[in-house]
């Protein structure tokens, strides 16, 4: 028995009939074909599936698509605007915050949530905010620096505006 859901993803409205057991991450990946959100585990431990649901970082591998009915969702594909990279996307490149790239979308979405609430985080608060996201490649050091880079850049651009 399928159920209708209406969601807004990266600013576009969608309406689909979905099975009640369909996970939100599989809805995004297999139905909408937004494959930037990854599945690294099935216990919401790794954070590769982190997206924003109603503006809040959420691990969508343990959320059902039907639970997202009426929600506004942002995925990694919706983070940059008008072809301009988000400061975090730029920071991860500048500071070599990624290697294989698999954890990167989740890591960036989690960091974006942090910077919304804490625009000038300390190293400790960055590490604390990202402790739910596994990276097996970088050892996290350059990820921390990437987030610091983005925070600095956002501060500077705010000062200009």
């Amino acid at each position, binding site marked *: 028995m399928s159920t209708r859901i209406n969601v807004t993803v990266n600013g576009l409205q969608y309406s689909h009939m979905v099975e009640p057991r369909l996970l939100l991450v599989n809805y995004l990946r297999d139905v909408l074909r937004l494959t930037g959100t990854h599945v*690294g585990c099935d216990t919401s431990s790794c954070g590769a599936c982190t997206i924003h649901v109603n503006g809040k970082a959420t691990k969508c591998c343990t959320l059902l698509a039907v639970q997202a009915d009426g929600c506004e969702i942002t995925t990694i594909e919706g983070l940059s605007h008008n072809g301009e990279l988000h400061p975090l996307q730029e920071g991860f490149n500048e500071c070599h915050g990624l290697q*294989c790239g698999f954890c990167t979308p989740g890591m960036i979405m989690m960091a974006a949530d942090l910077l919304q609430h804490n625009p000038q985080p300390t190293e*400790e608060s960055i590490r604390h905010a990202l402790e739910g996201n*596994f990276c097996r*490649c970088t050892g*996290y050091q350059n990820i921390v620096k990437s987030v610091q880079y983005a925070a600095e850049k956002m501060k500077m651009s705010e000062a200009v505006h």
Partner: protein
Amino acid sequence: MSTNGLIGRSVKRVEDKRFTTGHGNYTDDIILPQQTYAVFVRSQYAHARIVRVDTSVARAMPGVIAIFTGADLANVNGVPCGWQVNFKNGDTMKEPKHPLLVADKARHVGDAIAIVIAESKDQATDAAEAVEVELEELPCVVDAYKAVQPGAALVHDDVPNNKSFDWALGNPLEEVKEAMDKATHVTTLEFVNQRLVPNAIEPRSYNSSYDPVSEKYTLYTSSQNPHLIRLLMCAFVLGIPEHKVRVVSPDVGGGFGSKIFHYTEEALLTWCSKQLNRPVKWTSERSESFLLDAHGRDHVTKAEMGFDEEGKIVALRVKTYANLGAYLSTFSSCIPTYLHGTLLQGLYTTPKINVDVTAVFTNTTPVDAYRGAGRPEATYLLERLIDLAALEMDVDPADLRFRNFIPPFDGVQQPGYQTQVALQYDSGNYEGVLKKGLEMVNYPEVRRAQQEAAHNGKLVGIGFSTYIEACGIAPSAVVGSLGCRAGLFEVGQVRVQPTGKVSVYTGSHSHGQGHETTFAQIVADKLGINLTDVEVVHGDSDSVAFGMGTYGSRSLAVGGSAIMKSIEKIIEKGKKIAAHKLEASADDIEFASGKFTVKGTDRSIGFGEIALTAYVPHVYPKDLEPGLDFSSFYDPANFTYPFGCHIAVVEVDKETGKVSLKRFVAVDDVGNVINPMIVEGQIHGGVVQGIGQALFEGAEYDENGQLTNGSYMDYCMPRADDLPMFETASQVTPCPHNPLGVKGAGEAGTIGSAPAIVNAVIDALWSGGHKVKDIRMPLTSERVWRAMNELIS
């Protein structure tokens, strides 16, 4: 040859944008027309006879297309082992079949009994649950040492004592015993190098299809070496013609060794795709990854290191039981032998060494290469022994190393260093990295702080690890003589397009290492062109002529060298074209900064014009073929031998046993460096995997062969808030035998780091009067607390 300064610069990675914007293309992202989905029925027991498999109910369920069991594959070969090791008496290793689906008995939890293929993954999952399997549970073996004892259950009925092989290397045992008898101090250590789960964050994924018109297969695979998978699958498993198989490894989300191997699912999905004439896809769930991706390490070892009165090592004797799991994975046999025993010289002048290894089957997940592969085990053994010896003899551990280091040699003026365990080191300056490490950590200050802490009832410790490894794998003739069933060269093609833009095709595979940047830096530097004018293509057997893939820190040393050979051919041909156009002799043409110039004149032609001329050969040498496109095979002359010094400073909480890593200093010498930013990133990641082994990780099996921590909720891996900022530095001792002078950086961090941490904890405990020899990794609070309170035997 020209240089525009790109080599040696921390160029930002060109591949990053697709990953940071969500446009990477991993295997699980691919859905093909007419896609079907596979789910496996797996054994829940570690060892069980398969009594009955009934698929009748499942077959009738919605969406089910096919179900295959072991009986359907009776005539299909198993996946092969790529390296033959012989018993000490010369007999060939025991190499039981590793079937795609088991028909007789399951030999580890997760062994595949049936594959269910349906229109959707949910339908396949539902049907898999409806497959009725009757299993008769059998007694099992888990521990390598126990498995070889009389009366132990047999994993394979035809492998006595569960022994795949026994093996020895080095000086005759009698000579080693004699030297050990003369030692004034012998440090003995019995320890476990625990089993680790590699845990690349992208689970393994395969999608295989068959086109009945062209009779061609395409396999998308999350593999570190697509060509090798094609070779093994075609020639050894399925017997299908290689030219009718395309293997593609698109973006791959980390490997760390676990994605080198040819897994049963790759061949099985490919076989199924032909039976069904439809593409079949399977992506491992994390719980399956824990049970199926080849694990690493798992050695039980007794080692003795003897010293004379001056603190010089006089002998080393090692006995190891290596757990290989239930089947021989692709490179499993060479890891505890040729990648472990051969490294036991370490950085020291030890004159007598003997290593003896017994490789054992158990009812556990197969064990194979995991980042470092054998070399971390060797380093852990040596570096634990020497730090412990220093404590026992009341000598400074840095000083003890200085007394034993092999003196510096560059491999050019001074010859390479011949070890007692088969290898010849290429070049090294071992005291250099330790000196630098001591400066960086400010050693006297750390020792002073340690004394002060002890005075205040706190436990601070400093631990060292000075490591060497053998990578840049490997000279084909050498590994062939040791039993490797493949060559280990690499292929690099450089295709200059008519407009002077360059496409590079490499048999190396990047799954995080940044080849698209590093290799482009080399080509752009040497040809004097812009980085953006070079594209690096890898991972597709239809594009890249051949390749042996990425593992053993070999991409730059072997793959990069193959590209260098092609660049040299490009320049040589370019000179001939330029000479013709400039009406000079080719011998008088020099190439620098992207220009071909007649020596001593200002007459020159740019690289772009030469490229165009090669493809529009109107004014052209008569005896020269058109085109500017060369492919080269590079087979290295020797392994490369990176080395370094890692130093950890820890604090141990007396009340709880909790270890806090305060500082971590790493000085690594990986030869010449193309991109320092990328090398540093490799060191960071490697170091953290070593820290993971020391402090957090370890696969735990119960006596029934059940992996009791097979999920991210239970298996502890380092997270961002577990770690300090690392202090890293590099020393450069170029490799003398490859054109780039590079050694390799992928595994160094992991090889060096774990013993530094454990040594630091032991040092901390000794500073408080707890004279503990060993604590089993990972050093959890409980284990450290128990050690301090003498609650372990």
